[in-house]
């Protein structure tokens, strides 16, 4: 069994699976249970400044998006940061860290954008013995209305400023948690780096309304007939998160900056994908909130099993391995020509490929006598829609045309030379492909 020990910012944990700052990490009771279940680390639910505790709504805090069989595809929440007294949290953090020295405890923080506020809380956090802090610049609801959370994360200058205050007043690693509710994730990441951040973590939740009650015309979750946007998390946000992680990993300015990957990690495979795109570890919330802490056992065994199959002895061996393959569209090889192929033995004759291609794509699938579906290469642009809508795995595949063959759609001979848009004659700015 592969060793999953992961070193992130000098913090060594038995596996790369941490619980994200969220309800599962709100208090000692939960965190102890999480560690007993096998989680490698936790980011303690965000602490605010000392004083009267935060007040939450007393109606529903979560909305949901369901798939088939009521599978939870996404959660949306309007919960705020911890609503328990600061000192209570700090005492609990110290106790748990003492009992679990081999696990990571990172303390998430969110206080007003004044140096005084940060200066006052940081020494108290340091006193707990926690392994580091995570600056919550991501929460898109409630706290953002008070100038915190994503209100900071959406202004790179604030990110840099607050990060710098923290680095100046705290000795251990500082992770900056980014909001996805922004146009280009690279700018806040660069700002964090400029402020001296040891790492970024992303994504926080996506501003969202999950559904509308069509009887009383109120967004969910409804609080006395009104609703407010919440933050979306869970499997539905993973593709957006993967892209943002990749953008930071391959940006010239931020390449190499440690990343903690967050956003819909539900299985070991999700974790491996985030890590392949440059995340040094992952943080999980919705999967635990859906299935309980035990779900980490599948993540541990699955990642280990995959590493064994691939021959990776440590997580470092594959972290970032997909980053060089993330590129701009303009560099994609236009001489890579594929055609859809339908395996007639696997085909169950549902005709979804036909309907999709005929109605919405390129009329490149024939429906023949006896519900036999075949690809018309002269029309197939290899869009992949038939593959995507086919209910049978590996029934439709994309096969590459070999160099020297003539593409019946374009009438041109397939070349095995690499040629992209920057070299294409139709591109007014093309440079000659020498």
């Amino acid at each position, binding site marked *: 069994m592969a060793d999953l020990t992961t070193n992130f910012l000098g913090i060594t944990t038995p596996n790369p699976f941490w619980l994200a700052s969220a309800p599962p990490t709100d208090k000692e009771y939960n965190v102890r249970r999480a560690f007993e279940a096998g989680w490698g680390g936790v980011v303690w639910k965000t602490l605010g400044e000392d004083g009267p505790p935060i007040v939450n709504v007393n109606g529903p805090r979560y909305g949901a998006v369901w798939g*088939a*069989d009521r599978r939870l595809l996404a959660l949306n929440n309007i919960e705020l940061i911890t609503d328990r007294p600061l000192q209570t949290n700090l005492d609990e953090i110290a106790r748990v860290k003492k009992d679990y020295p081999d696990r990571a405890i990172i303390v998430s923080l969110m206080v007003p954008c004044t140096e005084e506020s940060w200066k006052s809380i940081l020494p108290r956090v340091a006193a707990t013995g926690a392994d580091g802090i995570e600056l919550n610049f991501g929460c898109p609801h409630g706290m953002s209305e008070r100038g915190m959370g994503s209100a900071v994360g959406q202004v790179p200058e604030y990110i840099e400023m607050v990060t710098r205050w923290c680095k100046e007043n705290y000795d251990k690693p500082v992770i900056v948690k980014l909001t996805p509710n922004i146009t280009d994730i690279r700018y806040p990441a660069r700002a964090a780096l400029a402020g001296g951040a040891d790492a970024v973590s992303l994504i926080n939740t996506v501003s969202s309304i999950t559904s509308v009650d069509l009887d009383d015309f109120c967004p969910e979750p409804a609080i006395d007939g009104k609703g407010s946007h919440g933050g979306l998390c869970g499997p539905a946000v993973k593709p957006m998160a993967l892209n943002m992680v990749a953008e930071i990993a391959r940006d010239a300015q931020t390449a190499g900056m440690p990343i903690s990957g967050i956003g819909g990690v539900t299985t070991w495979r999700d974790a491996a994908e985030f890590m392949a795109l440059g995340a040094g570890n992952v943080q999980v919330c919705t999967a635990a909130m859906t299935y309980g802490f035990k779900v980490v056992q599948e993540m541990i065994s699955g990642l280990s099993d995959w590493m064994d199959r691939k021959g990776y002895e440590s997580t470092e061996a594959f972290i970032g391995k997909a980053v060089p393959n993330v590129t701009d569209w303009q560099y994609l090889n236009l001489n890579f020509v594929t055609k859809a192929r339908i395996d007639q033995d696997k085909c169950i004759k*549902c005709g979804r490929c036909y309907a999709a291609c005929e109605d919405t794509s390129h009329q490149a699938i024939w429906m023949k006598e006896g519900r036999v579906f075949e690809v018309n290469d002269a029309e197939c642009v290899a869009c992949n829609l038939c593959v995507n809508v086919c209910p049978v795995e590996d029934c439709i595949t994309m096969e590459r045309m070999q160099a020297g063959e003539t593409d019946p759609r374009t009438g041109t001979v397939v070349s095995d030379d690499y040629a992209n848009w920057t070299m294409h004659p139709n591109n007014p700015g093309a440079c000659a492909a020498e």
Partner: protein
Amino acid sequence: MAHTIRTPGIVAGRLAADVLAENFSDLHPPLDPHEAHVAADRCYFCHDAPCITACPTDIDIPLFIRQIATDTPLAAAKTILEQNILGGMCARVCPTETLCEEACVRELAEGKPVEIGRLQRFATDALMAKGPQPFSRAAATGKSVAVVGAGPAGLACAHRLAMHGHDVIIYEKRDKPGGLNEYGIASYKTVDGFAQAEVDWLLGIGGIEIRYGQALGRDVTLEALSEAHDAVFLGIGKPGVNRLDGFDLDGIRPAVDFIAELRQADDLATLPVGRQVVVIGGGMTAVDAAVQSRLLGAESVTIVYRRSQAEMPASRYEQDLAASKGVTLMFNAQPVSANGAGAVESVSFEYTAVNGAGLKGTGERFDLPADQVFLAIGQTLVDAPDDLSRDGGALATDPHHRASLANVWAGGDCSAEGEDLTVTAVAQGRDAAEAIHTSLMGEGGPING
């Protein structure tokens, strides 16, 4: 309890009331809303779906399933009922395993089709629970149509004619409507008086009058009906039963009579059944009689079919159902004689084999002890006027279900078209109604065939 499963002879009360109630409960209990969602989600919404082609009434199955999946079961029901007004009954009694579900691509893919029948029941139950049938009558045409027989074909025809604004009088031989839905289907397939409730609901459209105790050839004649109405539809089924020469001992009776008696029984504990039951035949009637004999408490029940298992008209699903209830299935054996003094005591059979041109006895014989024997060897057309052309043992009709006399149409089991299934009868009744409507309203008035 006066009797047990081992009491000799044909007696009632072999099983306790609670066991009987359990035995005759719904064969396929209704899906609850969550189950329906899960089942509906399995539908792939196929292009030009094979299930639609396989349905004799051409219900748009992928559409109604998607309507269930998106929380509009009443819309789903309307999709079903527009094609098949007896969609509720068909959801219960259709041999879906040889129709829509056999054609389902998930049957091909996994051997587990989408549960189309149960989903259809979910939708139609939901609509019927809400209230009246959802169709309305067009403006009155002033035309009047006689429908003979209040079975599935006649009811479907009458409803569609009523929708078109025609006045319909149904002439029904028995004192209850429903035909085989009421008298001829295993009890556990349609519990809680569903057949009558469905007819009441269907008649809610208005414009349909049912006259009971009106048998064709006895109380009314085709000639008189043709004179009194603008068109006549015959949905008279095949109420005659085939008999076997020499099988006249006490304890021997047609299976359809037993099934009808069981369906009409107020208290199953009063219904007598043999200890050792033999059913001769291989269709759904044989299975229904055999299974219900077991469920009533017969100790042993054997179906004997003269051809091979592969040729048995009852589907494999029905065969497995019978086997699961403890019915023994024997193939390739034909009855030779019923033996006994007064009452039947045993039946002698001879094994068969296909020999040259046809099925022949092999000469090897065996006896099965029996105190009750049900004959399920086919039904016949009776009561139809002789001047209507026949096709085999049924009425000849053209593709529009028009019979050989002017302004007479026919559908359901009495017609030579299609399989003898409820759903086929509904399709033919509906299509005949459309043909009648076209004929009555066409330019130049009625078209005489």
